[in-house]
């Protein structure tokens, strides 16, 4: 029971709902911050008892918009976590923040609470795009937030959304260069995707706008990596770029299929319990989640012990998103299946021949850039 843990804490509230967003985020006129924090602390304590004492390598406050949390609440949760687990010396504590002026004002308080890495939802440095994406901040605020964050936090990352309607290769390169000049050591660069149930899904379905697809989308992706490389940022996951050593340790825990605890409404978790690896999630609606925590100590709605094949699939489908790839030895310990059992050998060869997969120097099976571009098509034929 000594698997290193990653801890995710979900804050499910936002000031408004962005049209592209399908996260578990909710807009409420009033949020009783203190009692939500209390519920998070209760659920954390409950889960810590189940999980047992373990090394804790990262905490991630995600959302929703956790920069709307009371900083004292963040401090209490960090304190709890440090008390309940054995925090590693270099523990990474990230908080997602939106770059509105209100939230910029609280950055120091979050730092004081123990947060040592900030991830800003900048999304674009183009005023028109920010409006299209329904963001509440403007370009000036985004830049101010970045500058403030860099003075306060040792580690800063921010998100951008590209492959937007009508976005040309040149205009994206220009925007990205501007962003890279502001960047510290980490960037998340996502292509805009249309998720079911979002406002964009309705608009897109109606033909209100179109997105770059196929060759155009591939070109944007390749240009992104090229520009990032000039600033010394290398892709280490499909959409994540970092200076060596600055990768998000917390997100790596997901991609490497480590154990992680997920606290808060709708949070997911993978946890080794009694020798089996369990998958569970929590009630998504914030009010119901809180009521259940208050009643039962937790709001887990489903928990299953994953089968060998499901584990193998998860290890592969997450691991192949990483440029470091999948360690066959880890696959075998985590799932009980060898690489030969987890994949279709003929397809493995075909993907190698086509230049989609390769063996790294460390003996990992990894995706090439060409492979990364086609990962979703490759997985169903490659995996058993």
């Amino acid at each position, binding site marked *: 029971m000594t698997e290193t843990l990653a801890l*995710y804490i*979900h804050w499910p509230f936002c000031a408004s709902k962005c049209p592209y967003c399908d*996260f*578990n985020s909710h807009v409420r006129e009033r949020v009783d911050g203190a009692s939500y924090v209390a519920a998070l602390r209760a659920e954390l304590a409950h889960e810590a008892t189940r999980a047992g004492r373990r090394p804790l390598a990262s905490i991630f406050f*995600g959302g929703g918009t956790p920069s709307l949390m009371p900083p004292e609440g963040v401090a209490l949760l960090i304190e709890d976590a440090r008390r309940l687990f054995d925090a590693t010396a270099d523990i990474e504590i990230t908080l997602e923040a939106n770059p509105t002026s209100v939230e910029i004002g609280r950055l120091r308080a979050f730092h004081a609470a123990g947060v040592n890495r900030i991830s800003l939802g900048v999304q674009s440095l183009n005023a028109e795009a920010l409006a299209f994406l329904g963001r509440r901040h403007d370009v000036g605020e985004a830049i101010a937030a970045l500058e403030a964050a860099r003075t306060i936090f040792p580690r800063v990352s921010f998100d951008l959304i590209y492959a937007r309607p009508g976005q040309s290769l040149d205009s994206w390169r220009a925007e990205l260069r501007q962003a890279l000049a502001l960047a510290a050591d980490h960037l998340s660069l*996502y*292509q*805009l*995707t249309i998720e079911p149930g979002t406002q964009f899904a309705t608009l897109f379905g109606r033909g209100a706008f179109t997105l770059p*697809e*196929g*060759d155009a*989308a*591939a070109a944007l*992706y390749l240009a992104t990596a090229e520009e990032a490389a000039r600033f010394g940022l290398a892709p280490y996951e*499909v*959409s994540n770029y970092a200076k060596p050593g600055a990768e998000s340790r917390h997100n790596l825990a*997901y*991609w490497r*299929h480590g154990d*992680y605890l*997920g606290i808060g409404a709708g*949070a*997911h*978790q*993978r946890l080794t319990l009694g020798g089996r690896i369990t*998958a569970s*999630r929590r009630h998504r609606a914030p009010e119901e989640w809180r009521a259940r925590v208050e009643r039962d100590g937790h709001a887990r709605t489903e928990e299953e012990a994953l089968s060998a094949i*499901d584990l193998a*699939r*998860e290890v592969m*489908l*997450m691991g192949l*998103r990483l440029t470091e790839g999948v360690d066959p030895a880890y696959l075998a310990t985590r799932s009980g299946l060898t690489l030969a059992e987890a994949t279709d050998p*003929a*397809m493995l060869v*075909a*993907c190698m021949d*086509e230049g*989609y997969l390769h063996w790294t120097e460390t003996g990992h099976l990894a995706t090439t850039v060409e492979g*990364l*571009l*086609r*990962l*979703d*098509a*490759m*997985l*169903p*034929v490659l*995996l058993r």
Partner: protein
Amino acid sequence: MTDTSLARIRNFAIIAHIDHGKSTLADRLIQFCGGLADREMKEQVLDSMDIERERGITIKAQTVRLEYPAKDGVTYVLNLMDTPGHVDFAYEVSRSLAACEGSLLVVDASQGVEAQTLANVYQALDAGHEIVPILNKVDLPAAEPERVKQQIEDVIGLPADDAVMISAKTGLNIEGVLEAIVTRLPAPTGDETKPLQALLVDSWYDPYLGVVILVRVKQGRLRRNMRIRLMAKGTAHPVNDIGVFTPKMQPVDDLGPGEMGYITAAMKTVADCNVGDTITDDRAPATEQLPGFRPSIPVVWCGLFPTDADEFEKLRESLGKLRLNDSSFHFDPESSAALGFGFRCGFLGLLHLEIVQERLSREFDLDLIATAPSVVYKLTKNNGDEIELHNPADMPDPSLVKSIQEPWIKATIFVPDEYLGSILALCSERRGVQVDLTYVGNRAMAVYRLPLNEVVFDFYDRLKSISRGYASFDYAVDGYEEGDLVKISILVNNEPVDALSFMAHRSAADRRARSICEKLKDLIPRQLFKIPIQAAIGGKVIARETIGAMSKDVTAKCYGGDISRKRKLLDKQKEGKKRMRQFGKVEIPQSAFIAALKMDA
């Protein structure tokens, strides 16, 4: 009805080119004679199948018995047979003609003589029919009855002076038609004291009554409770019921010489009663059979496969049921590496093929893939063996084949002057050989010999589009001839896809090979790997295209540790793959097959 004397009976077929108004005339005749009350009447009432009504065409010949009180004071019994006009169903016409003594030749007065007018009138003359020309649609402003009369005399050689001018639509001069029937068409002959001889004209399966047989009594008398014998088949069956179509089914006690009607008998399958067979009295059988008719020969074959492999048995059952009502199509089991288990089916033509396919999907709720239609080739192997090739996939190695013969047809094309040039060009492009070219007014009649292979594909559609719909076309199979034919195989990702292989003349091989490769390139969606598509004759590749690998397919964001969602998506994708046909590492969606096969058709 049992004492209907021969002199009071007239049996006639209504024949015409497609759409010249046969079924509409039948409506008026039925109405005039009170066969149906006005409220029961609808347009082309005899076209009872859904497909017939939707497409506005007759597919199956129909029979109605009418009573007409003529001007001479006698009430006549008229047996009317409405026939299809489309060339694919010429066989239906020939059967109907054998049951009658006369024909009404309907000609659209605005269109004039067309290809099937000619084809059908010759059939009727061959059957020894008396023919009454009817000029229909004289209500149309474009009607030119005088010119069309002249045409009938010039092209067909029939006197047309006393052609009956009518409008089937408005009901103009229907009585004129009825009077012509009783005065100008002959009464049947026959002797009711002789042993029973009745012609088996048609048979079909009725879900309530079982097998229903349409007969025309030639000699003797057919009675209820008789035991009948099918002379060619050699089986005997008790008769359950006898009746006539008015057009509703109406039981009668017996049918005498010259009469037409139906029999229901205890028969399990329609396969027991071959059309053209002679029905006689099992206790007092006739010694001789009636002339009967040539069996219909399918000229176009294609494979039909269920989209869902689990529906193979259902397809077999459905084909069996459909064949009960349509003895002119044939089916034998076949299997294909690409499409699994299915049936090789033979049809009278492309319209017939299309209709059977549509009925299968409509009446039996089957989702089917049809392979490219093919004609029947005759192969002579080096060792002297002769084989009939119904399926290009079965073509032996060319080095073993000494010669290949292909079916030819004799085609008659009617076309207005201004389109003649392009029609002749089309014919020679299709390896046609001109036999005759004559002019009738401003219309030309071209007679060509053409390889059937060149016609079954898109000839008819091209003909219609080149002539803006004004050309008409009829054909009859006209022997086999040796040809320089090759089998073109299609390889997807270096594996042959048998369902896509086809035969072509060597001179057209490159062009057709290139066109199908191009089509497949457009139809098969880009996927993970690049896919070579090749067309080959034997081992020699004559056309090739490459479908590039898809350029991008990856989820940008994988957030919040929700791996379950990704895993479930993967499960779904894997499930989706099962519905595709796998060619090595390539999947070809069903839709691509269907479209490729359709486009080639």
